[in-house]
Each structure stands twice: as structure tokens, then as C-alpha cells.
């Protein structure tokens, strides 16, 4: 039995845009809205280098990561070829114009994913 939690109304998300949802623990969740008002939710963390997908350009049912322009599918959280990797997706329900997320998922999924940190690039130097 899932507990569904209202986070905002569909109208609170820009068309072809996203909002960030802060969780008690772990990286934020990004909630996206497409041109035809479909709503998707993904962990706000690109599988490539952790870019905040909520800040990307949304087109069709994809988002382009703002850091290195990887294209991530909103429906499955996976990078489009030739790139590889997926980010955690979260279930979304619409009730009227309310956007609902699954509370259990919010409290349990992808808690060990760390946000990217600023600081010097770490390079492996060949011995």
C-alpha cells in the first residue's frame, strides 16, 4: 500500500520545465512537465557526472543535462545512446491537477547517491 504525497499542482511546474523536490535525506527529486502535461519524476542527478537534470532543457519526453548535454529519457531515467547509464525514476500520480509522489520511494530510494562536489578534478595518473 503506497502512501501518495501531494508535492505541487501541475501548473506549478513550467511547461517544458521542472521543479526540484527536497527530501529529508538524499539528493533532490526533479519533477518534469512535458508540452502535453505529462509529469515525470527522476532523481535530480545525471548518471554521467551528477548534473542537476531539473535545470536542463526539456523536449519531447527527454531532458538534456545542463552540464554536458547528455540526453536522459524522462520515462525510464536512462541515457539515450550512445551514452550509457540510468538515474533513479520515481512514480508519479496525477489527481486532478495535483502531482503526487510515492512517499515510501521518496524516503527510501537512492539515498546513497551522493551529490557531486566541487573541488579539484581527481585524475588517475598512470604509474
Amino acid at each position, binding site marked *: 500500500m503506497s502512501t501518495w*504525497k501531494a*508535492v*505541487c499542482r501541475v501548473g*506549478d511546474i*513550467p*511547461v*517544458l*520545465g521542472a*521543479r*526540484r*523536490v*527536497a*527530501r*529529508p535525506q538524499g539528493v*533532490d527529486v526533479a*519533477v518534469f512537465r512535458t*508540452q502535453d502535461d505529462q509529469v515525470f519524476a527522476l532523481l535530480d542527478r545525471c548518471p554521467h*557526472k*551528477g*548534473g*542537476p537534470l531539473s*535545470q*536542463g*532543457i*526539456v*523536449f*519531447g519526453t*527527454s531532458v*538534456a543535462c*545542463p*552540464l554536458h*548535454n547528455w*540526453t536522459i529519457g524522462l520515462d525510464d531515467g536512462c541515457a539515450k545512446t*550512445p551514452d550509457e547509464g540510468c538515474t533513479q525514476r520515481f512514480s508519479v500520480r496525477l489527481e486532478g491537477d495535483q502531482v503526487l*509522489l510515492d*512517499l515510501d520511494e*521518496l524516503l527510501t530510494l537512492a539515498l546513497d547517491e551522493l*551529490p*557531486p*562536489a*566541487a573541488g579539484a578534478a581527481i585524475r588517475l595518473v598512470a604509474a
Partner: protein
Amino acid sequence: MRKLKLVMVGNGMAGVRTLEELLKMAPDLYDITVFGAEPHPNYNRILLSPVLAGEQTLDEIVLNPIEWYAQHGITLHLGKKVVDVDRRRRIVKAEDGTTAEYDRLLLATGSNPFILPVPGKDLDGVIAYRDIQDTNTMIEAAQRYKHAVVVGGGLLGLEAANGLMLRGMQVTVVHIAPWLMERQLDDVAGKLLQKSLEDRGLRFMIGASTAALIGDRDEGKGGRVMAVQFKDGREVPADLVVMAAGIRPNTELAEKIGVHCNRGIVVSDTMQTITDARIYAVGECASHRGIAYGLVAPLFEQGKVCATHLAEFGIGRYTGSQVSTKLKVTGIDLFSAGNFMGGEGTEEIVMSDPYGGVYKKLVLQDDKLVGACLYGDTVDGSWYFQLLREGRKVAEIRDRLMFGESHLGVAGHEGQNKAASMADDAEVCGCNGVNKGTICKAIKEKGLFTLDEVRKHTKASASCGSCTGLVEQILMFTAGGDYSATPKKKAVCACTDHSHDEVRRAIREHRLVTMDSAFRFLDWRTPNGCSTCRPAVNYYLLSTWPKEAQDDPQSRFINERSHANIQKDGTYSVVPRMWGGETNASELRRIADVVEKYKIPTVKVTGGQRIDLLGVKKEDLPHVWQDLGMPSGHAYAKALRTVKTCVGSEWCRFGTQDSTQMGKDLERALWRMYAPHKVKLAVSGCPRNCAESGIKDVGIIGVDSGWELYIGGNGGIKTEAGQFFCKVKTAEEVLEYSGAFLQLYREEGWYLERTVHYLHRVGMEHVKQKVLEDAENRKALWERLQFALDGEPDPWFEFDKAHVDTRQFEPLSV
């Protein structure tokens, strides 16, 4: 809805590429059936030569394994030759009786080798060089026999001869023309090539004409070939004869079913046969505007166009291609393109060092490069090919043209190294750390042909682009001269076939003011574009129709949407504007207070005489702007960034002009100006040029008698000194001339094209004509710019007017 039926006859590179493009656009439109006469799936025919030479294996050159056909639900009939088509009932029939119905038929039957009609052509041991089977026959023959004769000293013949020689045979190449590769090289280069190949051990009979092939039984009429006899009576021993004297489009089936052919299946610009609109033809079998192409690049372009029509988009025209040639014999560098022979009405620039084995010839006509023939040093081949395709005027660089692009002052890796001689572990792309070996491996294993594909798969040259030339070179010698050069017309992105120019023109001529109307008018393939075209189209709308077009913040890159620069950890940096690079105690105090109040981790002085606050949380941005109380520096935008100045006559003992004031005036006049890319200015107060005006989009140098203006300078991606533009007397003129040039660039530049690249594309003459020689036009440009900037809001303080969506600064919570 019933699925349509598509049948393809032929299973080669051009045809399967067409299917790949079609599946990308309309994956569920057709039930597809493919007939292939060979028992193999689609393989890379270009790489047969490396297989023959023992550098690659057959498995390595398969492009689409059997599983690929199954994955896409394609019915595949291998080893079945199609012998008839009932066009009335729309049924295809194969030799073994297999049939298939079609709604659309795609003929991709390729070409046949031309076999000399001489006695003995049917003897054992006489073959063509066309497919996997021929290649295997040659590999086996090399193990058992000694003498080989290759008939034809063209591209294919020489690659065959080289391969057989590497496998230990004694090879003689027979060529009827006066020099080798006469369709790709002039006589000088042809003879240099012959010498290099002779040094390796090949033998040549140039100008020799084959009379008969002699067999080892029935008085020379039967059995296996043993010698080649020439018209002058000479004989050469041969246990293997390879016919490589050219190819002919395979039109056998098309002719039989009544489709009009003339040295190929005649097609229109939509790749439809002119006889039957349901029947398409692509590849070597097709004749487009009288040309049947035999290289991969144009054939892939054809495939792409054909796919858009099969997918029922009804857009896209194939208008012909420029082709270039490269010989795939390891260690031999030759390149040719266009009209390399020259002739009536052309001029030639020649560099010849036969002893050093280098020869270069460039052919010019009407100030444009129309042909190139390079031997021994092909580093600049891709650059020349680009100049040739674009048809750019080269008068301005004529004196340096022969010495290649690297002599035009390019930073980065572009054209500095000889791609062929680089070690596999040498880094090619410094942004993404891609080395040459990785690129070669991807090209071979994944069957890549275009620069875009290499970018996609390896990330090489996908970031700053300064290594593009080098990547193209690697592509050229790895995939051979058949590599797909960028088509003459570059589409904005995969959502459309329209070029940047066409989009700009449509927006201007049809008064399009919204993204939707532009997408509809231009038949965009996607409902709301992609991350490449949306920012571009949004900019074109705004720059063409200021005050009318609505800005679409969701089509702007995040930096312009949040008016700050996103950093690697998702925080932002903030650069307030300091007019002309000058500040004061109260500004510095406010900055210091903000740094402490918002715990900003890094404070850095930028290269543009400003201060950068790094590591600001997105939620804090509006408060940081408010507390700073300074205008936006637009350090995040494709817009006017900074106007760098020296202290000029105000303080400097050498200063001839008040450069600081000039800089402040320019910055106040131009700030909030969006452009195709970032715009940087500098003003120096004397020729010592301490503000480095020589590497700015507009650089101004004060001299005793006035101001010198330089344009198109660049310090970053392509280090290039600005070109002298004009000299003016007054500060008002500096504003007018700079502003007019920038407005011209705003109106004509392609999105993400810096002034240096814009200037290369349109030429200095064009800009001088529009700005210097036409005073009325100059004033009109300057006025249009002022009109566009008048009343433009500061996005840090006027959120509503600047369409800043403030919801982005407020995270939701659970």
C-alpha cells in the same frame, strides 16, 4: 491501421543506411523485407582492402549483423537474387521463387565490376574485386600462386595490388591511361605515386592495352589463366588476374521491369525513379542529375533524403555532392577533390618537392578554391575540402593557403599534427581526453563514417571543437577517402533539414514571431525541438523581431534561464558588472559583505576585469543580486560580457586617449545585448595595447590621431588576431562603427558562431561593404541595435519584464 510494406532489393551499405535512417524517423510505419544476393549481412565494403592487406578480419567489417535485422523485425532473404518485379500487382520475385508484396520498393542493387571483353576472360583465376567472395579468392590464391596481374591502376586496382603484394605475390599493374589514378590525380602526383609503389615492389605497365588472357589448357583457351598478352605482343605470367577497370551501375533488374535507366537508374531529387513514384533507388545503382556516385559520403546523403520521403515527411532534397578521394594504402598519403586538373579560366598554386616526395596543387577560380591535389602531405586535405564545399572566397588568405590551416594561427590541436603519424595513445581531444587509438577503434568497430557519429560515440571534438580538423583527418585515413564530409548544407540539428540561414530567412521573410509558428512553417520533425535547435530558434526570433517576438525562457540554456553560471556541483557563480573594469570602495565593501553573509566559498578575479563569486546556492541568487546592488554582468549569457580597458590618458604617461571612459561608454551602450555567442570588447589607450584589444570581438586602440578598430579577434577556442577594420576620429564614431558591426553579426551570425568564425564565413569584404562603404546602412544598423536595446530590463532586478521564472529559486518539499 495496416502497416505499409517496404521491399528493398540489395543489402549493401547505401540501402541499409537508408533503412537505419527510416527506422530512426518512423520505426513502425513499414513491414520491411530485404533481399540480398550475397550470403552475408550488410558489411563495410570500403574496408575490404584492409582485409585483403591482412590489417582487419572479415568479422570486424560487418556493419549490421543478422541479429540487427531480427531486432527491427526485418524479413531478410540472404543469397536470393531478385529476378523480376510485377509492377502492376506490386510483387517482387526472387530466383528461387520467393515473393514479397510491396507498397514502396527500394532498389539498392549497387554496381557490377567492368570486365574487359577480351578472349580468356572466363578462365579460372580471373576475378573482379568487389565483394567478400572475391577477397577470399584473392587471399587463397596468394597462398598457392606467385604471379598476379591487376588490370586497372585506379583506386581499387592499386588497393588490390598492394594487398596481394603484402600477401607475398609478385604483382604487375596494367593501366591503359598515361598515369595512375588519372581520375583523381594529375600527372605529377600520379608519377610520384607510381615511384613510391615501385619502391615497395609493385611493377607497372603504363599505357599498355590487354589483348587476351591465356589459359593453361586447350591451346590457351581453357583451364586456369597463366599469362596476360598485350596488343604489342608482350606477355606477362599471371596465375591470378584481377579486373579492376571500373564499375557499372547494376541496372539489370530496373531495365527488365521497365524503369528508365541511363548509366544508372534515373532518380529525381527525392530519390524516386522517374518512371514509377512507388519505386526509389539509392546508392551506386542510381543516377542523379547524370551522376552515379561510387563513394559512401554522397550515398549516405542520398539514403537520408530517401528515408525522409519513405517516412512520409516529404521534405529534403538531394542536390548532389562534392567528393574527395583518399587511397587506402598504408603509408601513402594522397588526397584530391574537385577540379584538380585546372584548365581554362583557373589559376594554380603549386608546391613541388619530388625528391622529398611532396607535391601540392591548389586550383582557384574566381577567388574560390575549386580543386586540390595533394601527395605526400595531406594534413590539410579536410580543410581544403571544406573550403571547396563552402565555396568561400579565399582572396584574403591566398598568400597562406598553400601552407595550410595551421598557418592561420590556430590554437589547440587543429591540424598541428599529422594524424597518420600520431601514436595511438596520443591525445586528440583535450576536453574529453580521447586518444587517437580510441577514435580509430570506434570508427572500425562501430562502422562510423561521419564527424557527427564520431562525436557521438567517442565525445572527441564534441566540446570546444578545436580538434575538429584533426578528428576529420583521423576519420579520413581510417574510413578512407570515402568518409562522409559534412554535407554542403549543414542542418541546424536532427529535428530538421533546414540550415541556420534558411531558418533565419524564413523568420525574417514570413514574419514568424513564435517558436511554434517557426516549427510549423519549417516542418520541424519534432513537436518541440531539442536542446540544440530551441535556443537557436529562440535567439533568431528575438534578434529578428525585437519587441515583437516573445522570449521563451524554457528554450534557453540554464545559465540564461537563471542568470548565473551553473558549476560542476550544481551551484552557481555570480559576476556583477563593473563598467569598463573600474570599481570603488562601496562596491567592494558590498561584495565582501555578500561573500560573508552567503558563505560564498570562492572569490576570483576574472580575465575580463571583474569579480566572480563562485559556489552560490540557487535559492540564494535573487538575494545575492539584491544585496550586491550592481547590474548583471551577463557572464552567463551569449551576450555582451565585458569591455576591458587600460587606464589610458587619465593616468598613464603614454596614454594618447581616454580609453577607460571610452570603454565605459561602449559598455553602457551595449550591455544587455544578446548575440549569437558571447561578445567581448577591449579598449587600449595607445599602441602598447595593454587591454589586449587584438584578441577581442571588437578591439579598439587609441592612437594620437584617433581610434583604430579591429574585429573578429579571439583569444579562446581559436587564437586569432583581430583584423584591422577601420580608423575613426571621434568617440561617437567608435560607438557607431562598433555597434553597426555587432548588429550585422547579430542579424547574420549563426547561433553559437563567434565573430571570428562569422568573419571567416562571410568575408571581411562583405562586412566592409555593409558597414564602412554604405554610411546609410551603417546608421540603420546602429539604430536597429539601439532600438532593440532600448528599455531592455536588467534580469537581476526586473524579474517580470525579463521573464525570469522565480519559481526556479524555490525548491518544493515533501
